[in-house]
């Protein structure tokens, strides 16, 4: 027991005094001849906001799909809170505590905002289906609590009074927030956000950035996000991983990434880094 603690302590100092909630080691995903994710290793510290960035087609969303069980990684190990999740299906992984949002919003568009959140609560509800036919006390209580909880979440994402609205009819920003509320409903430990500010104006983007920070600070949820807006990424993430052609080319704090020549090269093309330096000089 003591040994274990020591070992963990060792890790703690290594990872900025934070144990990792998700540790990905040498994960590879191929589609035919295309290597979408190439031997990728990432440690996501607990209670952090981390980001994965990279040019289009770098394999960021594929990586998310591997973590959430939508794809099965060809090689490597993914460990979440000490459990190896490589061969788990999406439902099992969600039940373990990882939820996600999608790049192009995927709400249950014909259902109301409230119903969307109620579906999101699925992993937390425990009554057996036959109890709903008999309306047992346990079932009624649980449904009541689920409704209250859904209302609370709706308020939390700033959508008071919109519970009866059909998801499809909600404004864009509200749909994004509803998707996050739905993901939060299962009480996750790790939340994956796939381009949460895509298609938003600067105003909305700022709001969303504050909201994400708020999520971590208030609820203590670890957040991993894919984002293209550098202002958002640099503003809120504590750790950034840069992917290019499926491989990790850089990792570190925002400051380190900003000045990394390989990152600049990946984004702006070969020679751009030296050009920039020359321009700065």
């Amino acid at each position: 027991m003591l040994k274990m603690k020591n070992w963990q302590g060792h890790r703690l100092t290594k990872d900025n005094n934070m144990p990792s909630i998700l540790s990905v080691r040498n994960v590879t995903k191929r589609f035919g001849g295309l290597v979408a994710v190439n031997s990728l290793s990432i440690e996501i510290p607990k209670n952090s906001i981390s980001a994965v960035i990279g040019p289009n087609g770098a394999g960021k969303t594929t990586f998310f799909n591997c973590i959430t069980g939508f794809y099965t990684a060809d090689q490597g190990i993914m460990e979440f809170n000490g459990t190896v999740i490589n061969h788990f299906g999406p439902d099992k992984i969600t039940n373990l505590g990882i939820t996600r949002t999608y790049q192009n919003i995927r709400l249950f568009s014909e259902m109301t905002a409230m119903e969307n959140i109620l579906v999101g609560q699925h992993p937390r509800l425990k009554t057996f289906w036959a109890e709903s036919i008999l309306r047992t006390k346990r079932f009624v209580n649980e449904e009541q609590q689920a409704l209250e909880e859904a209302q609370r979440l709706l308020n939390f994402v700033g959508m008071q009074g919109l519970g009866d609205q059909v998801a499809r009819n909600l404004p864009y920003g509200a749909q994004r927030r509803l998707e996050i509320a739905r993901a939060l409903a299962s009480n996750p430990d790790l939340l994956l956000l796939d381009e949460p500010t895509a298609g938003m104006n600067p105003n909305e983007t700022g709001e969303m950035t504050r909201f994400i920070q708020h999520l971590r600070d208030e609820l203590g949820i670890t957040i991993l996000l894919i984002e293209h807006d550098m202002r958002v990424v640099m503003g809120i993430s504590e750790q950034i991983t840069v992917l290019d052609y499926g491989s990790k080319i850089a990792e570190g704090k925002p400051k380190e990434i900003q000045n990394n020549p390989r990152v600049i090269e990946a984004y702006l093309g070969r020679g751009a880094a030296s050009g920039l330096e020359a321009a700065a000089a």
Partner: protein
Amino acid sequence: MNKKFTDSLKNPFNYGLIGGVVIVYFSAIGIVEVFSERNLIGESLSLGHLMLFFGALFAGIFTSKKIEHDNPLPNILSGAFAGLVSSIFPLALYYIGTHFNLREIFINVTPNLMDLLLFGRESAATGLFLFMLTTTLLGMIGAGYYLLPDVIKKPFTSGFAWTLGIALFSENVTQILRTLDKLVRDRSPQSTFIRDNIRTIFQDGSLVPNVAFWIFLISFGITLARVLLAAKKMDQPAVVEEELTPKKKLAKQITNMVLLAVVLVFAPVFIGRFLSQVLFLVGLYIMMGLGLNIVVGYAGLLDLGYVAFFAFGAYTMGILTTTTNLNPGGGLNFWMTLPIALMVSVTAGLILGFPVLRMRGDYLAIVTLGFGEIIRILALSDWLAPIMGGAQGVLKIPNPVFFGKVLDTPETLYYIVVAGSLIAGFISVRLRDSRLGRQWMAMREDEDVAEAMGINLVQTKLLAFSIGAGFSGLAGAIFSARLGNIFPHSFNLLISVNILSLIIVGGLGSIPGVVIGSFILVGMPELLREFNEYRLLMYGILLIVMMLNKPEGFIPAEIFKRELHAKDEELAGAQAD
């Protein structure tokens, strides 16, 4: 002639032609002639006439719909034009039919039909002129009818609907009256009031003209009064309708339930044997419809082999209750077999569910279709003949016995079906409003995301399949106990199609929709025996009309209404912006 005028004739012309095609079609397939035997009101209006003319009438209505004028004259005139045009094709049919022998292809184009087109006149000229005049008038009436303000239109519609309805269902109305008569005479043998009046209302199955007039007048009056009252209420905005308090709501619900119970319990006493049999059948289809509604409506899994579970239930009941090689000592009784039939069909649902878990949409439909056929062919096969009887089926299935009373009439078996449908409906409602219902709904909307929400797709799909199969299996068991003999060919694809159609017509995912759908698609054809030959044609027409005008069904579930009218809403929204 200026261009505007010719343009304005275009729509009426087109609608008229379509109306004409409808008339010719109905004539050529023999509906008009067959139905002309069936008098609706007196000797003057037959069902054949109705078929002949409704093309012209609707041409007028549609024409009028397309034109918006403050002045009714253009509508009426173009309606008349549409009506006139709709006579072109029938006249052509008459000409060709009398000059050439069409009967080698259209065997129904008989001299009799030709006479009908002439309204029985000797001279072709007068007859055809009369025909044209009638269609023109009908076109005008159709156009004018559309223009009527609601206050007059609604009473007119209701008047016509009631009169034609009673005339159409004359046989059934007579039956109900006869049953009532019998009930009354059991008490007081002298009273012959109802019996005497049956004869004054109907003669040879057709409504006596002045009675028809009175029926029209009464329903017209009642609806007019209701419309006027409603209008008056609308004029007084001061009276704010109070929200019903929960207590009042509950009281209202209880009253409705008690009323429903009374109607359900006493219905067979008043409606007689034949109608009880019809209700029995409708109830059976409601049970199956509710089951399929869970699979297709809630979970979004298109199952075309649903009849298989019906067969499982029926055969389980048949095999276990009769004396066969399996149980030479005689069978179990109905009540013991019922839960076994339920279990067997639920298991069958699970077995079908497993291989098709990964399939979606069309693929699933094809595989389930195959499954349904496999079951039918297995039942028919020599291989299983020692158990299932092969083509001979299972014979002499005993009727259920309830506390020593053998339930062998439709009036008594009706209660079992009512109980079964009520239970199925209850379970459906409870499941829909539960976590499982939401799981199904989410799965139907987006399977991947549903899985990412932690929903176990395997479990959720299998539950839908097996619960749906259970309802159908129960219906099958009751069905076989009612008929006494079951044969493999009773379990063909058409039953699956029927059930699916009734769900769609009623409204996918809606429980009242299933009830209405069963009454329309199962009950009506039984009552309208005249249409029996054209049953599938009527199905087709009904389905097409429904899909074009009301794709969400008669009583739509909220979620499908949203889905199917998403475009309209967006358009409305865009206009509002």
